[in-house]
């Protein structure tokens, strides 16, 4: 029997606010343990949470970017459970009335384009961090993360392969980072993913029993974890067994998923309306404010780059992989008036140099103006492509303008035809044998003359002019 995987992903994205969702404590990562805590996020009796407006702003941005229906009215609920990372004994989340639902994103894999539905997006508070001591029967709790704002993006069970799951996650990640509402750092846990996965016989409508996968902290691990889990469930079903509904942890080192034997497996969260917070009402004016501040999203930008600059979809994909990189490219393209050359130089030398230094384009020592000027100099024949390679590296290491570097290195191309012709005559005169052989049909020797000419001019000859002139002089029978 053939089985079809059914996968739905839940993404938790930490929002890039300065303060927590319900109090003024800082959200900065990596601070001394418990130094970003106050009576509100510690869950002291008698305190009252007050909602950070920016959290709603950010949620609305994500909702618009993913084509969600925005519900004008939403409210908070308590999700009750006991765990040491949750000092109040409940997490403030949203339940019955999510602020956004019924959205979608388009993904593309080897198999083609597909649209993946988004069930809902809601706001909630993050829990604290637990550290377990291998040598003692204790766990240690840091509540700095308690109350850091999250949006949870619940996806429809539309995904059918591990590859699609990774593509969907990358798409969400890219949108969040473009919107500048999440830093997307998976290692620090700013972008986390849980997956629900089940198998069903192909053609069957009803879902099979699912497992929930956790602890996959990279796109690659999500894909590997799901691939493993598909095989595991398939093996169980094919050998007549039954999949148990449970939470499983991805073990990266072992490359397997393992059952998480939790003492409190049967959850009963007893959600009820949060009495300490008033409902959120979003009016037209607020929506318009958010809409007018929405940046161009990655997919739109990609399509525009292809049509506006006549570059390949692949190149457009690389150049729009970050907002800053896309802006850098556009600036170079605009200033040089040569988008294709701009794309080649940005994707080639500039990205290579940045990658070698593990730098981002924001830190690039070559300004768009300097790169554009260099491209113009290649175009008008002042320098050759080969010289430009040296110049771009020199611009990168020194931050100087191409003009300064050309002057320092004496790099200007010889574009004076008479000077070049004189140099060529000398070379032909010195190598009468080769000239004779060439004229007798040994075309390969052309390269030899080019090499000699480049050597004589120390690489400064304009290659096009050199070729033309050399051909002319060699074909002139004396």
């Amino acid at each position, binding site marked *: 029997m053939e089985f079809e995987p059914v996968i739905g992903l839940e993404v938790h994205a930490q929002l890039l606010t300065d303060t927590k969702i319900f109090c003024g404590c800082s959200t900065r990562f990596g601070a001394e343990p418990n130094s970003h805590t106050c009576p509100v996020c510690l869950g002291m009796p008698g305190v009252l949470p007050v909602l950070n407006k920016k959290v709603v702003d950010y949620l609305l941005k994500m909702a618009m970017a993913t084509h969600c229906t925005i519900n004008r009215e939403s409210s908070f609920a308590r999700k009750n459970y006991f765990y040491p990372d949750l000092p109040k004994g409940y997490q403030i989340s949203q339940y019955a009335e999510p602020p956004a639902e019924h959205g979608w994103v388009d993904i593309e894999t080897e198999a083609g384009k597909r649209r993946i539905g988004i069930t809902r997006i809601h706001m909630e508070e993050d829990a604290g961090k637990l550290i377990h001591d291998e040598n003692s029967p204790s766990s240690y709790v840091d509540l700095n993360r308690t109350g850091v704002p999250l949006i949870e993006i619940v996806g429809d069970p539309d995904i059918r392969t591990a590859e699609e799951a990774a593509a969907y996650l990358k798409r969400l990640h890219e949108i969040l980072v473009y919107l500048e509402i999440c830093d997307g750092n998976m290692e620090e846990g700013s972008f986390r993913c849980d997956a629900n996965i089940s198998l069903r016989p192909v053609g069957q409508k009803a879902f099979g029993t699912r497992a929930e996968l956790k602890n996959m902290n990279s796109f690659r691990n999500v894909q590997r974890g799901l691939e493993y889990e598909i095989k595991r469930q398939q093996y169980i079903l094919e050998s007549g067994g039954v999949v148990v509904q449970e939470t499983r942890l991805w073990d990266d080192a072992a490359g397997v998923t393992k059952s998480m034997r939790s003492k409190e497996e049967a959850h009963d969260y007893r959600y009820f309306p949060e*009495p300490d917070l008033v409902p959120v009402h979003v009016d037209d004016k607020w929506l318009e404010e958010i809409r007018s501040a929405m940046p161009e999203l990655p997919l739109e930008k990609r399509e525009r780059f292809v049509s506006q600059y006549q570059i390949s979809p692949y190149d457009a994909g690389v150049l729009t992989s970050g907002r800053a990189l896309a802006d850098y490219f556009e600036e170079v393209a605009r200033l040089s008036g040569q988008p294709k050359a701009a794309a080649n130089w940005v994707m080639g030398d500039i990205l290579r140099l940045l990658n070698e230094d593990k730098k981002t384009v924001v830190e690039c020592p070559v300004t768009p103006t300097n790169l554009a000027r260099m491209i113009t100099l290649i175009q008008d024949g002042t320098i050759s492509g080969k010289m430009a390679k040296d110049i771009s590296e020199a611009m990168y290491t020194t931050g100087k303008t191409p003009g300064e570097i050309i002057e320092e290195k004496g790099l200007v191309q010889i574009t004076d035809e008479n000077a070049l012709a004189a140099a060529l005559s000398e070379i032909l005169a010195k190598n009468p044998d080769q000239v004779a052989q060439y004229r007798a049909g040994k075309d390969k020797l052309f390269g030899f003359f080019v090499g000699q000419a480049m050597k004589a001019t120390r690489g400064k000859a304009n290659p096009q002019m050199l070729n033309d002139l050399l051909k002319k002089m060699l074909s002139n029978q004396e």
Partner: protein
Amino acid sequence: MKISREQVAWVAHLARLEFKEDETKKFTAQMNDILSYMDKLSLVDTNGVEPLANATLRKNAFRADDVRDSLSPDASLANAPEARGGFFQVPKVIE
């Protein structure tokens, strides 16, 4: 019966309360009385009335995203039964 003894025991477990047999029995009876009394509310005609999530009629109480001083870690940990190295120390929660 509005609520069974098993339900009372389950809710007690979720709230980390331990009841003796006769206590469970007593609370089951009390909770049944309360829930039966609450049934009187169902007699009110609420057709056309929107459910209310909050007793005040206010909406949109917000704060600006401005950082305020947190407590010192010492103050935050002052009430902790056990603390170590700036962390709250609790019985181990995983095997």
